[in-house]
């Protein structure tokens, strides 16, 4: 397993390096967020351990930049900033885990192993399908640059579609995604809400991205 440690504090960086190597892993050090970006793009790392307080570009911005550059390597933020706001922010900019210093090295290793198990398939913090963009953290939706106001149910429905772009979703699947268990699935609530959604995301823009697939369900087209 190969780890990229992004840490400007030399002593901490060398301790982390020593710990990972002692446990049979390979580890490199990046001193700044900029270094981390090109190193992560240049070599295949299994996990990135990212400090938040970095000179220049900080850890949050570095994480955002990595994801924007299409680097989906799992990121564990390791920082002395332990407030709830910081943890939430770190996870919302695309980090996969957040560990506050001082930490137990055994726990750090376990968390890193868990992250590696999950792999590096794309896990965008903000979903993009065609011209539609959805941010689950801020609960905002845009088509191109115009923001769209959605109700909670409409948002849940759209999120379900945007997590499986191009796939046909059956009524039952959609009910499961956006409604509580035990909802009367004989009702036409899905059809009603799909129509609401079309009124907001398609009709005003003259597009038809949300299709009905007769006899099967609905599909959000990847390309319009």
């Amino acid at each position, binding site marked *: 397993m190969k780890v990229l440690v992004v840490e*400007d*504090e*030399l*002593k*901490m960086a060398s*301790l*982390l390096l*020593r*710990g990972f190597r*002692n446990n049979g892993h390979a580890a490199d050090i990046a001193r700044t967020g900029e270094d981390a970006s090109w190193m992560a793009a240049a070599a295949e790392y299994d996990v990135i351990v990212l400090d938040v*307080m*970095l*000179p*220049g570009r*900080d850890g949050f911005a570095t994480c955002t930049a990595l994801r924007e550059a299409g680097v989906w390597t799992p990121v564990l933020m390791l920082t*002395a*900033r*332990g*407030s709830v706001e910081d943890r939430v922010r770190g996870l919302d900019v695309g980090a996969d885990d957040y560990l*506050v*210093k*001082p*930490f*137990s*090295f*055994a726990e750090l290793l376990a968390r890193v192993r868990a992250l590696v198990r999950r792999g590096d398939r794309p896990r965008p913090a903000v979903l993009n399908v065609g011209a539609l963009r959805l941010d689950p953290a801020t609960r905002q939706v845009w088509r191109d640059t115009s923001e769209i106001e959605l109700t909670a149910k409409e948002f849940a429905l759209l999120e379900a579609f945007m997590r499986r772009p191009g796939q046909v979703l059956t009524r039952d699947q959609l009910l499961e995604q956006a409604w509580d268990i035990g909802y009367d699935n004989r009702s036409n609530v899905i059809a009603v809400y799909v129509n609401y959604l079309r009124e907001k995301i398609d009709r005003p823009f003259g597009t038809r991205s949300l299709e009905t697939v007769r006899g099967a369900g609905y599909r959000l087209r990847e390309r319009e």
Partner: protein
Amino acid sequence: MKGLPIRLRLTLAFAVAVGVVLAATGLFVYLQQESALDRTVNQGLRARAADVTALAQQADSGLREGRGAAADSSGFAQVLTSAGRVVDATPGLPPRPLLQAHELAHLGSQGRFISYTLSRERVRLLAVRVHAQDSNRVVVVGTSLEPRLTALDDLRTELLIGGPIALILVSLGGYLLAAAALRPVDQMGEQAATISAANPGQRLRLPPADDELARLGRRLNDMLARLEAALERERGFVANASHELRTPLALLKTELELTLDEPASIDAYRAALRSAHDEADRLSQLAEDLLLIAQADAQTMPIRRSTITVADMLSAVAARYQRRAADTGRTITVDAPADLTLLADRFRLEQALANLIDNSLRYGSGPIRLAAAEDPQQVEIEVSDEGPGFPPEFLHRAFERFSRPDQARSRDGVGLGLAIVTAIMAAHSGSATASNRVGGGASVTLTLFRPHGADHRLSGVPSIPAMPSVASVTDNSSAISNL
């Protein structure tokens, strides 16, 4: 009265005032009506007297036959000789004269009004002396006062019933009005009850009108804003402090954990212990700094003033850093009048100076100069170098806690050094200012104000041995606070 709710007190005061006004008005109306009725009765009597006088001029005045205006339903008349004998009278009157002889004696030409009870009926008489048919006669006319008394009785009854009803209605209105006026106070109170440290951003809703309540609300909101800012600062300080404590703790913990987990040589253990020792030093220094800042905030920093010879103190501090400066090829020079003295806490002042020299050794370059100057009001001590100076954008927040030119954590310090300098100067009622010198280099000036009229200059003595510092940070139990 004091124990009653304010709206009840207001209503009571209002009711008393309205009651007084109503009573006065009622009395006025009553008296006015009474005198108006009196006037009417008197005018009627005069008119009748003139009538009867005219009749009396004739041979037969004919009152008995009910002639003339004298004989309306409620009136009656009598014509007497000046001796009191009845000459003529309207029917229904007793045959005796209406006036006694002594009453007749005192009649003027204008006549006289006399009130009288005639067969259990209140009447008013007007007696006038007239000259008729060559003899003196007295014309007496009278009228019943019963209609007037009935009218006044009715009026009094109306006033006595209507007044209290009006008073009750107006008081009720006043109570409701007071309740309505005080409702915003209740609402503000309810809102205030929900504000705590958990939601310090909450504010009271203000009534739309710009009145006393709105002003009160605004003042309370201003107070809440100040408290919120203080709370915010406090939270920021705690967050920063815990963050700064976590870094050395993390290093300490990780170092120990890794070393315990791996088979290591004596040298490796020694290196780990040395590293742990360094972090423990950092932690205790940080704890001391935080304690000092907390004391400054609570205004309980112990200050032990003694007379300090400034040149001695500057030399002593400089000597402590001379070697570190020499390691990087730098010098520390002292430039102070030999006889300049100061009343201050030497230990704290040296701590402030040490922080400034340490800063310059870390971030500055060139020779470091410690200079002192005085005027009658104050003593200024300047620490300056010839390095790059403060970054301009950092200058205005140089003395803030945990503020560093680069906001990333650096091992060089936690950003408390200058904050401690300010805290120490504030405890001395002095000040610290940072600037960049014109020719390049950073400069920090400590200003200490002299007490009025005190002259701490030791005349003729070039220098006295430095006094040992008497205060220590850990010696709080016996510290005497001068604040």
